[in-house]
């Protein structure tokens, strides 16, 4: 068939980025590009610090989400003790390096982010009806992007992280009295930060498209399973605002790390509410 006849007739030799759109179509991909790049730069920097990730001042116990769970690290808190013997000598020792790849791959393979970064980083397309730079295209039908289909496995891991971060949030409400050594309930700004963090991450994780599929989307006669049907309804309602969960949860997880870090460094004082 005479494919492309109109494009050729209407818009001969259109160059990359050409469109007849009048709106500022480049704003959205640019914002996505800057926000994601900014996050990657901050998260990488924070992950390589290897310190200032657990705030224990004033009897508090706030753990940065980038470093949670602390598998190795401070032997007093970590699951498996201090720096392990197998840690490569050339690599900075930081517990976050064992943790961050999992949420990173969860977000990287997320359906929402995929669509967003294909546009912002690959210009594939730069925006709707805007001319692309490449003529060859295989999308997610071939290697490497066919690997995006692994997403649900990162979801399983992400759910474990939600449980872990919920535990951290719970821990942040317990303060050690320095004179008695007893733990008592309290609340600092850090407790609120870690709580909001896990709530936002849970809203993002439980609205995942793979979650929606697994909890009921794959069944055509869902009414026969009332429990799953209800769960599917809840997940679908989170899923319909998946993007609106994706961004705040991303920004806030970085903010939570920053908050704990600045408290550890003595730049911020954690304000105790009670």
């Amino acid at each position, binding site marked *: 068939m005479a494919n492309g006849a109109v494009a050729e007739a*209407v818009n001969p030799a259109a160059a990359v980025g050409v469109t007849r759109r009048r709106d500022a179509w480049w704003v959205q991909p640019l914002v996505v590009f800057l926000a994601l790049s900014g996050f990657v730069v901050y998260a990488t920097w924070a992950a390589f610090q290897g310190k200032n990730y657990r705030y224990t001042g004033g009897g508090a116990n706030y753990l940065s989400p980038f470093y949670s769970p602390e598998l190795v690290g401070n032997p007093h808190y970590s699951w498996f003790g201090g720096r392990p013997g197998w840690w490569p000598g050339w690599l900075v020792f930081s517990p976050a390096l064992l943790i961050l790849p999992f949420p990173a791959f969860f977000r990287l393979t997320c359906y929402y982010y995929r669509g967003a970064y294909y*546009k912002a980083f690959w210009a594939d397309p730069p925006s709707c009806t805007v001319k692309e730079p490449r003529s060859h295209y295989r999308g997610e039908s*071939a290697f490497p992007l066919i690997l995006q289909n692994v997403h649900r496995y990162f979801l399983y891991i992400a759910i474990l992280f939600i449980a872990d971060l919920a535990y951290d949030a719970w821990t942040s409400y317990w303060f050690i009295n320095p004179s008695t050594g007893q733990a008592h309930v309290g609340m600092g700004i850090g407790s609120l930060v870690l709580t909001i963090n896990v709530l936002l991450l849970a809203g993002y994780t439980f609205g995942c498209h793979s979650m929606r599929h697994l909890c009921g989307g794959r069944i055509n006669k869902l009414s026969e399973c009332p429990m799953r049907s209800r769960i599917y309804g809840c997940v679908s309602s989170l899923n319909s605002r998946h993007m609106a969960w994706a961004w705040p949860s991303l920004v806030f997880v970085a903010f939570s790390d920053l908050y704990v870090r600045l408290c550890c460094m003595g730049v911020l004082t954690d304000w105790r509410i009670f």
Partner: protein
Amino acid sequence: MSSTATFKIWRGDANGGEFRDYQARVDEGMVVLDAVHQIQAEQAPDMAVRWNCKAGKCGSCSSEINGMPKLMCMTRLSDLPLDQPVTVEPMHTFPIIKDLVTDVAWNYRAKKMIKPFSPRPPDAPDGTWRVAQADIERIQEFRKCIECFLCQNVCHVLREHHLEDKFIGPRLLTFTAALEMHPVDIEDRLYDLRKLDGIGYCNITKCCTKVCPEEIHITDNAIIPLKERVVDRFFDPVTRLMRAITGDGKK
């Protein structure tokens, strides 16, 4: 009170063409199709434009207005910046016939490749089926489609890369979703979705959803759920194993 506005309308055929400027009177409540009709009636009687209902329901008047795929009959002039000329051109993805009219026949040919509705044996002796309202509701959204093909037009897999031989496009994936998720249907279209319909070519960039005049959540509710079903069948070792053990069909 009426004023005038300039419309740059593409005039031509497969051999080429150009934008021509026309002035049209603008009255309250007018849509782009009204202006095009006025120009056709008063200045350009040979201008080809396809339309039928002028109510956003027949899907005939698809075009690109100021660079965005839209229905001419549903685009109000009051929503456009009339201090600049309004460009109106045919959909870019399909072969041109004349002026604003394109040949969308490929969509109908591709649709024939999709395995049709095939119901399970009737539930009742009178040859009828029993379906829960909740189960059918999920696919009602897809049935709102008016086949305007704006989504097919905007999809970069077809528009930029012309992979019509490998990818059926968002409209037809939505059509497949309506069949595949139907509580009475027993056909299996997952192999076709991956191998013939090319669902993997969609990179979920959501332009189709953005332009759909029926506001169907094409990407979130049709394409991604189908992609997940394809993952079940072809990529997830656990669901593949379960299938092998239970011999479970898809439904």
